[in-house]
């Protein structure tokens, strides 16, 4: 039987890689299982202007590349696989990937969150046919087209601004009468002549499933109750994220929305299992807070491992 690792980190966004950096510098020789969305949500963003230390901003993928290189420099080992199952109750903890089974004394969960969808059948059918959750991936296909973005947070506003590089017009559809996005982002959106806002509006249907392309949206005004149609060739969905915790269902405490519950720092309900980043954060959800909690998780894991000796 192979000797268990001191610590395995699941996830490779800012939380996972910061945990890896600290664990590596603590001589814990961490293994990072990167997961499908390697590098996390920042891989899909453009310029990040609120990560301290980069006065002119830094591109999301570049920042993640730096974090990865920094963690590796101190001995973190990165594995480009995804976890298929875990057994948190066994000691050592068992983590299975498609390739093999790994054993570890401590586990840091940093699986983050993935884009949430509206939940319309038509939205799912037309995914990749005009419906998208990744402006940097798919904006290219809609040059000189009219596009809609649904959402009101920083991601939605950033995507809307980014898409004006390609689109002739971008309609930002939001269900409330004000944006959640930061003031700086809001001002950028309001100042952009290509962006139009539709307040208090819900997307009820994406047409046209029969043609296999997006041709228009069916909208409903929440105040008047009136339905209307908006002709667009693409819909970018940016209505927030859901935590990636299905892997751990039934083995660890979660709240009603699937976020991992942490207490006393990054401790979860299972001894030796720690959680950091968006998977346990429904409030802040920033790259810097994810990184900060990743650091905490590594320190908490180190203390836990010390206590076993």
């Amino acid at each position, binding site marked *: 039987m192979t000797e268990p690792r001191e610590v395995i980190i699941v996830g490779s966004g800012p939380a996972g890689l910061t945990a890896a950096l600290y664990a590596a510098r603590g001589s814990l020789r961490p293994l990072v299982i990167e997961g*499908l969305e390697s590098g996390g949500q920042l*891989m899909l963003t453009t310029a990040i202007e609120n990560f301290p230390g980069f006065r002119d901003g830094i591109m999301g993928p570049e920042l993640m590349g730096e974090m990865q290189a920094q963690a590796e420099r101190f001995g973190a080992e990165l594995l480009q696989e995804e976890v298929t199952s875990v057994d948190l109750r066994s000691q050592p903890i068992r983590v299975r990937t498609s390739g093999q089974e790994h054993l570890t004394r401590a586990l840091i969960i940093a699986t983050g969150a993935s884009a949430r969808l509206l939940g319309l059948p038509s939205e799912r059918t037309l995914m*990749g046919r*005009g419906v998208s959750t*990744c402006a*940097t991936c798919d904006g290219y*296909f809609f040059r000189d087209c009219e596009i809609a973005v649904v959402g009101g947070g920083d991601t939605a506003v950033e995507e809307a601004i980014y898409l004006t590089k390609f689109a002739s017009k971008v309609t930002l559809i939001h269900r409330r009468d004000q944006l959640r996005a930061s003031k700086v982002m809001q001002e950028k959106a309001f100042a952009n002549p290509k962006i139009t806002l539709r307040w208090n509006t819900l997307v009820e249907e994406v047409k046209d499933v029969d043609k296999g392309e997006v041709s228009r949206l069916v909208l409903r005004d929440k105040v008047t109750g009136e339905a209307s149609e908006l002709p667009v060739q693409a819909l970018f969905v940016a209505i927030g994220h859901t935590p990636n915790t299905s892997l751990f269902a039934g083995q660890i405490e979660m709240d009603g929305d699937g976020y991992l519950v942490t207490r006393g720092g990054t401790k979860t309900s299972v001894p030796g299992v720690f959680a950091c980043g968006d998977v346990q954060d429904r409030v802040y959800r920033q790259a810097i807070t994810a990184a900060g909690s990743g650091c905490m998780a590594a320190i908490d894991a180190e203390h836990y491992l010390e206590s076993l000796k």
Partner: protein
Amino acid sequence: MASDKIQTFTDATFADSVEKATTPVLVDFWAEWCAPCKRLGPTVDALAAEFQGRMSVGKLNVDENPMTPTRFGIRGIPTLLLFKGGQIVESVVGLVGKDELKRIIEKHV
């Protein structure tokens, strides 16, 4: 690495290399600026190695070859299309794990 088993398709070669091929062909539509596409790369390499002899595998850069994605109505990447006898038998959009892709491909090759 298995990347020597991966072909490069272009607008000019697509009909001959993919649609007239006698074995099934998996085509990976990608671009340099697409982070999930880059993430899918190693998976596609691994699939090429595992299905060698039963299926050929190639990539098409949508930036350099805009005609082919337009012809097939591709408006999001990464997209994987599996061709068999000149027909699309599977279409997979977005990042999907290797095990699931293997299951999808096994049905046809």
